[in-house]
C-alpha cells in the first residue's frame, strides 16, 4: 500500500514539473553539438530504458535535436534542427544509403532495427559533415558488435506486446567473441495492426509487419589488423500510411559491407579503417488496399548505392586529427503506372525519378586542438564533388518537357567549414562555433516528376537548374555541472541561402486527380532557422532523479513567412526512481499550441497537448540468468492529439499499455 501511495506521489510530481529533461541515456559530452543515444544491448544491460523494445524512431525522438515526421506508425522521417532529410546525412556505420520512395515513406532509419545498433550519434550542423555534405547535421547509426572480447557465447531473447494496435515483438540475438574472432547475429520481428487514437478512434491503414536480420563478423589477421564483414537484411510488408493516399506492400533492403582496420599502420597514424559497401533498396508502393481511389496506381522505386570510405585518426602533440575520404555511386529510379478505369485504355506510365545516377567523392579533415586544459578549438573542413546524371534517355526527354535546354548531367562542388571554440571553468563550460556548408539538391528536388505531396495537395516538379543551397551557421552553448544539478543550454542559428522550397506555378496543370496545382522547386534568397534547447537534471534523492527539457524552433523565409514543419515550444519532464532491481519512471511530454504555421504548405497548426507516460521495471534472476521485465503505459489518459510533425494531422496513439521482456543467456 505504501508503495502504491509512493508511486502515485511520484507520478504527480512528474506532472507538476513544467520543464523538460535530458534522459540519462542521452549522454552529451559537456556542452556539445553531438548527442549519443544508446540503443540495443548497451541500454538493455543497464536496464534504464523505460521501453527497451521501442522502435528506433522512438529512440531517436528522444534527442533534443531530432524531430520525427510521422506518416503512420512506421518509418518516421527524422529531422535534425528542424530540417528534413534532404538537408541531413544519415549513415549506418559511415555508409550512405538513399531511400527508394518518392514520398519519403522509407527514410534510411526504417531499414535497421534496434537490435542491429548500439547507438545513434547525432551531430548538429557542420559537426555532421564527416560522412557527406550537409546543412542540418548528421546521424550516424553505429552497429552493435561484440568485438574481440573473450566473452564467448552470449545470447538473448526478447518479446514484447502492446495493447494499442496489437503490437507483437519478438527477437533473439547471439554473439560470440574471443581474442581473434567475433560475430553477432540477431533477428527481430514486429507486427502491428491499426492503432487507435485517443478516444478510441481507429486510425485506418496504420498496420505494418517487419522482419530484420543482421549479422556481423570480425577476424583478426594480425595483432594490429582485422577485417569485418556485415550484413543487414530488412523486409517490411503490408505497411500502411494513414497520412498518405498509398501504402507499401514491400520495402526491403540489403546492406552489406566489408571493412579492413589497422591499428598504427605507421608511427604517426593511430587507427586506419577502410570500408567498401553496397546496399540495395526496393520499395513497392501501391493503393491496392484503399477503397474509392479515382485511379489505381503502383509507384515502385529502387535505390542502389556503392560506396567506400577510408578514414584515419591520430594525435600529434595537442592536435587530434581525423581524415576521412569517402565516395559513393547511387542509382535512384522510381516509376508510376496508373490503371485507367476504362479497361479499353492502355496503362499510363511515367518515370517519377528518371534513373538518376549520383557520383560523390569527398574529403573531410578535422583538427581538434587542445590549447591548454581550459581551452580547445575544433577546426574542420570538407570538400565534396557531386555529379548527377539522368541515365535514362526517356526520363531526360520527359523532364525536357519542362526544361527544354536542360543538360543530361550536372556537377557541383560542395565545400564546408566549421570551427568551434570550447572552454571549461570548474563546473562550467561554454562553447561557440561558426560553420559554413553547402548541399546539392536531392533527386526529388532536382529531377522529381509529378510527385504528389499529400500535405499541401500539390504535384511537385523537380528543377535541374537549382543552385546549391548554402548555409552559414552560428552556435553557442553553456553547461553547468554540480553535485546534484546538471543543466545545459544550446542554440544553433542557420542562415540558409538559396533555400530550396516548392512554389506554386498556377500556369501548370496538376497530374494527380484532385490535386490543388503544381509546385516547382525554387529558391528563396534565404531562410533562417533557429534551434534552441535547454535541459536540466536534478538528483532529488539518492535514488530519485528529475529531468526536464524544453525545445524551441523557429523558421522564417527572407520575407518573414513561416517555414513548414517548425516545432512549437515543446517540453519533456520525467522522474526516475530506482531501488535495487526495481525502477520506475513517469514522464510527461507536450507542446504549446502551434499558432505559427505555413498555410502554403497545407499546415493548419496543432493544438497544445500533454501526454503522460509511466513505466516500471524489474530485473529478475532465473537460474542465474538475467530477466528484465518492463511494464508501462503511454498516453495514460488517452489524450487525442497530434503534433506539428504529424503529416496531414493524423492523430497519435491513444493509451497504450506495453510489456517488454528481455532474457539474457550467458
Amino acid at each position: 500500500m505504501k508503495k502504491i501511495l509512493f508511486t502515485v506521489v511520484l507520478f504527480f510530481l512528474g506532472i507538476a514539473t513544467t520543464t523538460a529533461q535530458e534522459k540519462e541515456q542521452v549522454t552529451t559530452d559537456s556542452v556539445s553539438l553531438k548527442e549519443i543515444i544508446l540503443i540495443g544491448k548497451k541500454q538493455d544491460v543497464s536496464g534504464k530504458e523505460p521501453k527497451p523494445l521501442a522502435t528506433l524512431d522512438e529512440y531517436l525522438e528522444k534527442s533534443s535535436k531530432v524531430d520525427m515526421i510521422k506518416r503512420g506508425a512506421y518509418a518516421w522521417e527524422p529531422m535534425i534542427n528542424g530540417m528534413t532529410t534532404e538537408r541531413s546525412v544519415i549513415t549506418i556505420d559511415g555508409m550512405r544509403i538513399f531511400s527508394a520512395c518518392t514520398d519519403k515513406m522509407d527514410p534510411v532509419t526504417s531499414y535497421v532495427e534496434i537490435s542491429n545498433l548500439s547507438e545513434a550519434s547525432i551531430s548538429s550542423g557542420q559537426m555532421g559533415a564527416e560522412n557527406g555534405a550537409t546543412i542540418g547535421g548528421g546521424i550516424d547509426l553505429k552497429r552493435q558488435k561484440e568485438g574481440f572480447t573473450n566473452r564467448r557465447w552470449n545470447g538473448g531473447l526478447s518479446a514484447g506486446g502492446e495493447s494499442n494496435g496489437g503490437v507483437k515483438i519478438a527477437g533473439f540475438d547471439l554473439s560470440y567473441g574471443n581474442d581473434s574472432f567475433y560475430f553477432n547475429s540477431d533477428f527481430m520481428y514486429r507486427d502491428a495492426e491499426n492503432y487507435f487514437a485517443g478516444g478510441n478512434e481507429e486510425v485506418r491503414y496504420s498496420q505494418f509487419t517487419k522482419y530484420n536480420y543482421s549479422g556481423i563478423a570480425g577476424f583478426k589477421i594480425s595483432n594490429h589488423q582485422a577485417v569485418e564483414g556485415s550484413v543487414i537484411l530488412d523486409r517490411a510488408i503490408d505497411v500502411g500510411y494513414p497520412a498518405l493516399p498509398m501504402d507499401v506492400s514491400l520495402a526491403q533492403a540489403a546492406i552489406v559491407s566489408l571493412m579492413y582496420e589497422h591499428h598504427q599502420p605507421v608511427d604517426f597514424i593511430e587507427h586506419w579503417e577502410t570500408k567498401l559497401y553496397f546496399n540495395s533498396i526496393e520499395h513497392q508502393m501501391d493503393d491496392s488496399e484503399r477503397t474509392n481511389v479515382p485511379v489505381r496506381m503502383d509507384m515502385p522505386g529502387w535505390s542502389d548505392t556503392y560506396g567506400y570510405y577510408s578514414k584515419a585518426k591520430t594525435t600529434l602533440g595537442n592536435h587530434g586529427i581525423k581524415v576521412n575520404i569517402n565516395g559513393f555511386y547511387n542509382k535512384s529510379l522510381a516509376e508510376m503506372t496508373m490503371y485507367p478505369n476504362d479497361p479499353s485504355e492502355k496503362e499510363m506510365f511515367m518515370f517519377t525519378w528518371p534513373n538518376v545516377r549520383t557520383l560523390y567523392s569527398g574529403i573531410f579533415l578535422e583538427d581538434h586542438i587542445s590549447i591548454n586544459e581550459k581551452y580547445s578549438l575544433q577546426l574542420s573542413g570538407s570538400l565534396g564533388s557531386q555529379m548527377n546524371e539522368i541515365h535514362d534517355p526517356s526520363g531526360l526527354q520527359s523532364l525536357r518537357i519542362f526544361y527544354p535546354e536542360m543538360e543530361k548531367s550536372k556537377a557541383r562542388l560542395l565545400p564546408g567549414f566549421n570551427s568551434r571554440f570550447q572552454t571549461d571553468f570548474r563546473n562550467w563550460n561554454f562553447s561557440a562555433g561558426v560553420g559554413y556548408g553547402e548541399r546539392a539538391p536531392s533527386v526529388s528536388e532536382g529531377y522529381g516528376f509529378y510527385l504528389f505531396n499529400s500535405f499541401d495537395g500539390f504535384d511537385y516538379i523537380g528543377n535541374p537548374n537549382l543552385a546549391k543551397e548554402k548555409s552559414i551557421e552560428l552556435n553557442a552553448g553553456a553547461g553547468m555541472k554540480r553535485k546534484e544539478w546538471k543543466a545545459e543550454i544550446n542554440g544553433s542559428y542557420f542562415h540558409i541561402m538559396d533555400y530550396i522550397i516548392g512554389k506554386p506555378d498556377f500556369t501548370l496543370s496538376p497530374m494527380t486527380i484532385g490535386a490543388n496545382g503544381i509546385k516547382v522547386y525554387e529558391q528563396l534568397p534565404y531562410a533562417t532557422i533557429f534551434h534552441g534547447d535547454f535541459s536540466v537534471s536534478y538528483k532529488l534523492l539518492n535514488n530519485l532523479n528529475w529531468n526536464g527539457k524544453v525545445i524551441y524552433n523557429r523558421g522564417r523565409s527572407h520575407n518573414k513567412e513561416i517555414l513548414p514543419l517548425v516545432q512549437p515550444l515543446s517540453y519533456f519532464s520525467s522522474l526516475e526512481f530506482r531501488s535495487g532491481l526495481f525502477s520506475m519512471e513517469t514522464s510527461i511530454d507536450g507542446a504549446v499550441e502551434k499558432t505559427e504555421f505555413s498555410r502554403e504548405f497545407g499546415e493548419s497548426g496543432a493544438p497544445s497537448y500533454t501526454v503522460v507516460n509511466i513505466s516500471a521495471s524489474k530485473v529478475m534472476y532465473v537460474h542465474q540468468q538475467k530477466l528484465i521485465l518492463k511494464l508501462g503505459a503511454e498516453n495514460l489518459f488517452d489524450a487525442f492529439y497530434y503534433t506539428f510533425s504529424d503529416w496531414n494531422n493524423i492523430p497519435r496513439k491513444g493509451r497504450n499499455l506495453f510489456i517488454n521482456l528481455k532474457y539474457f543467456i550467458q
Partner: protein
Amino acid sequence: MKFKYFFSLLLLAGLTSCSTDSEEVIPDNELEGLVKIQTIQNHTHKLELYSANGDLQEGYNKIVFNLQTLDGREMISDAEIQWNPMMHMESMAHSAPKSEINKRTENLYEGYIIFTMAENEIEYWSIDFDYTIDGEVFSLEAPITVLPTERQKVTSFMGLDDKRYVLTLVEPTDPEVATNEVTIGLFQMANMMEYPVMDGYRILIDPRMPGMGNHSSPNNVHLTRFASDDFYHGKLNLTMSGYWRINLILHNEHGEVVKGEPVDEINESSSLYVELEF
C-alpha cells in the same frame, strides 16, 4: 577443306540470286522500311503499293509505289502519274485529300492520301492511277483495304463558317513521353472530289488524359502552317504514356473560331479532337 566448301556454297547462293530474281529489279535498299500492300495490274503494267507497315488505314497514309512492265523486266521511272482514291458508299461516292505524286528514289514514287473513313461491309475504297508513258495514256484501278484505327486520327466536320473540312493527325506516329513534333493536315472539302489544303489557319492544341482526371501537359505549341509542306506544325508534350485526347480549336486567318471549344472544368472535351494511345 571446310573453307572451300563454304566458299562454293556462297558462290552458289550468289549465282542463284542473280539468275532467278528477275522480278526483283528494284535494289533492296530502296525498299528498306517498306512493306508491300498489294499489286495492281492491267494488261500492260503492274504497280506495287507499299507502306511502312503494309496496311492502309483511316487518316494519313504515306504511300510508296513503283510502276513496271507486266512481266516485271522493266521499271518505269519517268511516267507522269495522277491518282485518285474513291470511297464507294451506298448512295454516293467521294474522294479524299491527297498529295501530288513525287519521285522518291530512282524507281519509286510517293505521295499521301488521307482516308476519311475505314471500309465496312458495304462501303469500300478503291484507287485508280492514270499515267502517261511517252504520250500514251494508261490507267490502273483496284479496290483497296482501308482498316479502321482504334483511336480517332482523322475527322470530317462542318465548320461554323458552313464549310466542310477534313482534319488529320500526321505526326507523331510513334509518340513518346517527351516533347513531340506534332503535324496536322487541314483540308477543305470543296466538293466530292476536291480537297484543297487550307492555308493561314491556326490550330490550338490542348492534350488531355481523360483517364487521369483530364489533366493537361505544359508548354505545348499551337500549330501553324509551314510553307515547306502541306501541313500545320507545333509541339505536343506528353507527360506519360497512355491514352491522350488532343483537343483542338481551329481558328481561321482572322482568328475566328471555325470549330472546337476550350476544355475546362465543365467541358471535358472539344468537339474537334484527335487521339493518341501508346
